[in-house]
């Protein structure tokens, strides 16, 4: 059966017009659905999808798109699998810890479906490589985890005229939509500007329930497959909100902003820009160095405690973090510090700490402004304490 298949966008590839008998068996549950059928399965086989990020959202995306028979899957990630990933990044197994994510994902996805082509790009997506990476693909799927990359993916998709299947998550909540369709809105229509770094939730409020990226990434996979098949109503123009705690899906209208600098009638952004500058961060870790305060290293602290110095250990983490591990400190969460400052004795020497040293730096800064003079920040927090002094203290 010779079905003519038009690639959705991009340069025409060598189009497959048939499936092998083995492929027919593999995809039989698709083939017997009239909404997919032989024609749809060949569209999938001839499609080229680029996944930005192979983490939480990328896991179900990679698995379902590979299983569905998307002919060419590109994977972009520069990260290495670590143990904290396995709670949600279900593409990876324990034996993958330490491997580049793109490599571990390639092994898993090719074992799932050896008939597809998997191209890995072990690199950070940047303004210098994005257009080159995107140009060979029909659909870009955004599974990244930071604002600069989200704006970069959006702008590159608009410049190249490619759909951007968007998903993002926070703790129990997810957002899904499709940007970059010819008449549809783009990410900048929804959010013209990113939040300033100071207003991005800190690690005290971070975390994500492992199933959530599974659900949101699966919704993105579904939207991707619908775009390839040209079936159903895409989420373009609609923002789907998912609240896993309430177990509610809601939908909001997403309009194309006629004055959008990227996709509006008078485009003012004609090339990729410096997205870290746009988002107000010099680099991913830049916010850590915002506050300069006096510090003490874990080893210095240990030797002073061993000497019997009178030090008040102030733990500014949250109670649920204290339960994971602690340094026998006195717990006053950063957010409660302003109203509980009277509990502290400014005549005693205080060492403040948190998990990584960032929140406690804010605490030290706050207390110094409140008149405390003998106060130090534990450099690197519990993570550094575990590395340098007491490995029996778990890192999280």
């Amino acid at each position: 059966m010779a079905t003519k298949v038009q690639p959705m966008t991009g340069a025409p590839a060598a189009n497959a017009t048939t499936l092998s008998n083995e492929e027919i068996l593999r995809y039989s549950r698709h083939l017997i659905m009239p909404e997919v059928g032989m024609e749809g399965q060949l569209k999938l086989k001839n499609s080229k999808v680029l996944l930005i990020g192979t983490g939480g959202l990328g896991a179900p995306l990679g698995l379902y798109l590979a299983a569905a028979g998307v002919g060419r899957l590109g994977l972009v990630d520069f990260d290495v699998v670590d143990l904290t990933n396995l709670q949600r990044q279900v593409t990876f197994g324990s034996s993958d810890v330490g491997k580049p994510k793109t490599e571990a994902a390639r092994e898993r996805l090719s074992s799932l479906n050896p008939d597809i082509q998997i191209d890995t790009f072990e690199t950070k997506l940047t303004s210098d490589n994005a257009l080159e990476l995107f140009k060979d693909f029909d659909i870009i799927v955004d599974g990244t985890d930071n604002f600069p990359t989200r704006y970069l993916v959006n702008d590159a998709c608009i410049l190249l005229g490619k759909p951007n299947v968007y998903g993002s998550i926070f703790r129990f909540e997810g957002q899904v939509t499709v940007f970059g369709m010819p008449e549809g809105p783009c990410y900048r229509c929804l959010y013209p500007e990113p939040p300033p770094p100071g207003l991005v939730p800190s690690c005290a409020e971070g975390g994500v329930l492992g199933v959530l990226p599974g659900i949101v990434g699966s919704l993105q996979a579904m939207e991707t497959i619908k775009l390839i098949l040209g079936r159903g109503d895409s989420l373009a123009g609609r923002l789907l909100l998912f609240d896993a705690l309430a177990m509610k899906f809601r939908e909001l209208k997403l309009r194309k902003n006629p004055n959008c600098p990227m996709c509006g009638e008078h485009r003012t952004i004609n090339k990729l820009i410096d997205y870290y500058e746009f988002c107000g961060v010099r680099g991913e870790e830049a916010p850590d160095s915002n506050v300069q305060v006096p510090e003490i290293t874990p080893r210095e602290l240990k030797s002073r405690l061993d000497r019997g110095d009178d030090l008040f250990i102030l733990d500014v983490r949250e109670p649920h973090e204290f339960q994971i591990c602690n340094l026998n400190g006195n717990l006053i969460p950063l957010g409660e510090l302003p109203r509980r400052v009277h509990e502290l004795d400014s005549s005693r020497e205080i060492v403040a700490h948190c998990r990584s040293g960032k929140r406690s730096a804010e605490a030290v800064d706050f207390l110094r402004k409140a008149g405390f003079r003998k106060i130090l920040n534990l450099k690197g927090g519990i993570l550094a304490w575990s590395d340098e002094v007491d490995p029996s203290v778990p890192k999280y």
Partner: protein
Amino acid sequence: MGVKVIIPTPLRVYAGKRDSTEVKAATVGEALGRLTTEFGDLRKHLFTEEGKLRSFVNVYVNDEDIRYLAKENTPTKDGDTISIVPSIAGGSSLVRRCCSRPHA
């Protein structure tokens, strides 16, 4: 019955951990005013120092973006739902990105 305001996960910590609240208000501006009076910590997350709604926070009345209605003067009536929808970026490793040490 008033206007229901749905508070998104990232902002619940500034709103007494509530996921929604109900206010009496004839406009969106009034509703957000009531909300930030009740929960003072929310103010800086919703408004700039000049009192303008922040551009990374979108507000909807029912399913419509107020930027395409009458912005903060958009009228509200009992039974309406106001949604506050901030941009979230998380995808895979939010915790690690925000406060971990630089990775290799």
